[in-house]
């Protein structure tokens, strides 16, 4: 395929934002029908690069050529007219509109809605991605939402399809089906620019990979000829040590949940149905699941933000279901939610103030109803020092920190409180590899000291790295926990609900 003239040529693309060069002189080619991987850590400049190709951002320097012609899209509709379509990482969908309306919004010249519905059905069947055009997007699962995005792109018969981290919300079985769809598209001549940091996926799917680090291209190679380790080292630029997990005996049950059911407080949320598990001291329980299967609700009900009948949740044998977050913190249960800004941390408050908000009770930061600022600052500084949070000091507001640094701070803030039980949701989401390793190691160390740890995550590799036992959330139900040792990815996929009603694309083209 690469023998043909390239479809898209990028040469010397540069884009700088105040204080950071997002892309520095990036050049590579994409051939027709090629599945080309764009690899890099968070902040390596992948998103900026594809935004330039899609017309959302204008490059400061450099040029692009599409089929040999100069190509400088002023806005996304120009890109779409030129045959470039994009599936976004954070879905660009509208909850309150139906599938057909969402598809129409992403098209240049959509047919009348009735014809569009028929075409959506046809294309979705042809590619094994069933969808009902009349359903509200807010009611769809994450996998189904992605189908909406993909079909929106396919209806425009694109020559280049950009996919930004498409598998982070899918079960392993759904990933297989997606890959079959992508290979079929590639056979039909559609080039795919595939952005990811999951190396095994790229090695199985892509024929060429461009690796970015710190905004610069470090290599273009054939990922099938490199080992995952070689790719990782190119990506990170240093050697990574996997976290250590010493063998240790488990203690008594510290957190027990029996028959917990709870209606979601969000109209598009997932209600929890009959959740049961027991967590022992020193144990790390990993809870997998595709986004939107009740993870948020589970965290809220365990942290105490949502109350439940008191005997449904027991902490160290004591019923705590009726207690709020502060009541549970005093007894030794702390939590770190997924959303860093606005949930785990107040964006416009300083790190010191944020440290107080969670640590006030367990660290005794208030005296006679007044805040002990010296002690609070010392607490914030100890978190910053221990977790290597890169910030000028604890007086900086939370909003000013990068995602990874803030994540280290909010997780570290909870770990520093020496809890008996800690619940974390997506602890390393959007965090670079070395920071992620620090956070995982800290959670394992805490378990080693005898705390119970619940890690809710959509990253299976992460769960397999840290978890002693393993359960999955699927439509608000939790599977019985199983020992993590010896579990295969296939088994985990089935625990997560398999392929959610999808079927593979037919081998033959229409």
């Amino acid at each position: 395929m690469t023998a043909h003239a390239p479809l898209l040529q990028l040469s010397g693309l540069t884009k700088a934002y105040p204080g950071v060069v997002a892309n520095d002189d990036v050049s590579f080619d994409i051939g027709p029908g090629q599945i080309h991987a764009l690899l890099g850590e968070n902040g390596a400049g992948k998103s900026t690069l594809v935004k330039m190709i899609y017309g959302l951002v204008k490059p400061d320097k450099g040029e692009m050529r599409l089929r040999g012609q100069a190509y400088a899209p002023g806005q996304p509709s120009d890109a779409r007219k030129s045959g470039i379509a994009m599936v976004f990482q954070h879905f660009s969908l509208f909850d309150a509109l139906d599938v057909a309306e969402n598809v129409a919004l992403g098209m240049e010249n959509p047919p009348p809605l009735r014809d569009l519905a028929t075409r959506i059905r046809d294309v979705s069947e042809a590619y094994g991605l069933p969808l009902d055009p009349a359903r509200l997007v807010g009611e769809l699962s994450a996998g189904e939402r992605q189908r909406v995005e993909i079909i929106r792109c396919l209806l425009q018969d694109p020559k280049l399809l950009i996919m930004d981290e498409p598998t982070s919300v899918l079960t392993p079985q759904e990933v297989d089906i997606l890959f079959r769809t992508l290979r079929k598209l590639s056979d039909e001549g559609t080039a795919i620019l595939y952005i990811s940091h999951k190396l095994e996926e790229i090695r199985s799917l892509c024929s060429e990979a461009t690796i970015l680090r710190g905004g610069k291209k470090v290599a273009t190679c054939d990922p099938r000829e490199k080992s995952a380790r070689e790719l990782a080292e190119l990506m990170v630029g240093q050697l990574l040590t996997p976290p250590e997990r010493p063998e240790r005996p488990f203690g008594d049950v510290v957190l027990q949940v029996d028959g917990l059911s709870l209606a979601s407080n969000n109209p598009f949320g997932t209600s929890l149905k009959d959740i049961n598990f027991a967590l022992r001291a020193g144990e790390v329980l990993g809870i997998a699941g595709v986004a939107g299967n009740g993870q948020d609700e589970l965290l809220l009900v365990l942290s105490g933000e949502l109350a439940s009948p008191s005997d449904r949740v027991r902490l160290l044998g004591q019923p705590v279901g009726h207690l709020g977050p502060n009541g549970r913190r005093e007894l030794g249960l702390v939590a770190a939610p997924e959303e860093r800004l606005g949930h785990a941390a107040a964006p416009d408050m300083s790190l010191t103030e944020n440290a107080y908000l969670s640590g006030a009770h367990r660290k005794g930061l208030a005296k006679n109803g007044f805040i002990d600022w010296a002690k609070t600052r010392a607490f914030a500084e100890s978190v910053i020092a221990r977790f290597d949070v890169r910030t000028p000091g604890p007086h900086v507001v939370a909003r000013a920190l990068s995602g990874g640094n803030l994540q280290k701070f909010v997780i570290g803030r909870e770990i520093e409180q020496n809890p008996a039980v800690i619940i974390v949701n997506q602890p390393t989401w959007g965090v670079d590899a070395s920071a992620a390793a620090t956070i995982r190691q800290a959670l394992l160390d805490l378990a080693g000291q005898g705390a119970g740890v619940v890690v809710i995550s959509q990253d299976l590799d992460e769960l397999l790295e840290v978890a002693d036992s393993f359960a999955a959330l699927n439509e608000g139900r939790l599977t019985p926990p199983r020992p993590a040792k010896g579990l295969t990815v296939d088994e985990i996929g089935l625990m997560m609900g398999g392929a959610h009603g999808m079927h593979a694309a037919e081998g033959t083209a229409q």
Partner: protein
Amino acid sequence: MILGSIQPAVLIAALMVAATPILLAAIGELVVEKAGVLNLGVEGMMILGAVAGFIVAVQTGNPTLGFIGAAVAGGLLALLFALLTQVLMANQVASGLALTLFGLGLSALLGQAYVGISPPRTPKLDLGPLSDIPFLGRAFFSHDALVYLAIAIVIGVWWFLKYSRAGLILRAVGENHDAAHGLGYHVKRVRALAIVFGGACAGLGGAYLSLIRVPQWTEGMTAGAGWIALALVVFASWRPFRALAGAYLFGGIVVLQLNLQAAGVKIPVEYLSMSPYLITIIVLVFISSGKARGSLNAPGSLNRPFHASG
């Protein structure tokens, strides 16, 4: 016996007239909120429309020009709001409240020389034989053109939002402005246009008060109609035909209140004046409980400022 003095046909005719100003203002605000903007300046745009329409009509002797002038004045004031909130990124709630106060003050200043004057009469629309139908003719077919124009705008807005591509884009912008931006739609431009449309409608509603309903200019004559219109949008859960029904309901309450007084019923007027707001509060509580279907219809980006990110 007491209620017997109220004639149904006259009551219906009166309530259609009473409802038209708030209906016009509400349907405009509905479009604005569907685009994700909360403009609390409806009252200010209405009263400016009332005085501007009055002045133009008196100066030219032509009520039609008066209504056009009112729509332009309301639209201009709304443009100021669009400049503040969409370009200068000012807080929508504070800007809207300021717009109301500014409109009230400006209209009082402009209208000083016009107090106590009668405007040129707006003729009733001649609907020929329709007006002669017993009861129906008196109730529904003996109005001025604006009453029907208001209904036509409601139908137009309903069609626009439901079936047109521009309406779909407007709803998308109001539902999730980040996603709309990501797809390449001009969030601020769409919102600015919606805001101006809302202002023009509010201006028309205001002029209806000063040129037809009262008809006279007095300071502060909108007397809270803009706030009722705002409440009405929520009450209607952002659906055009519910806004129509709600406007006639609220209009009915106003008329009933006058009739009951005239008929000598001893209910303090204040109870009825309060009722639209009470109903709205109940609706708001119901919606924000999260269980109601209605909650699914509130625009997702309502009152959230949009910052384009790189």
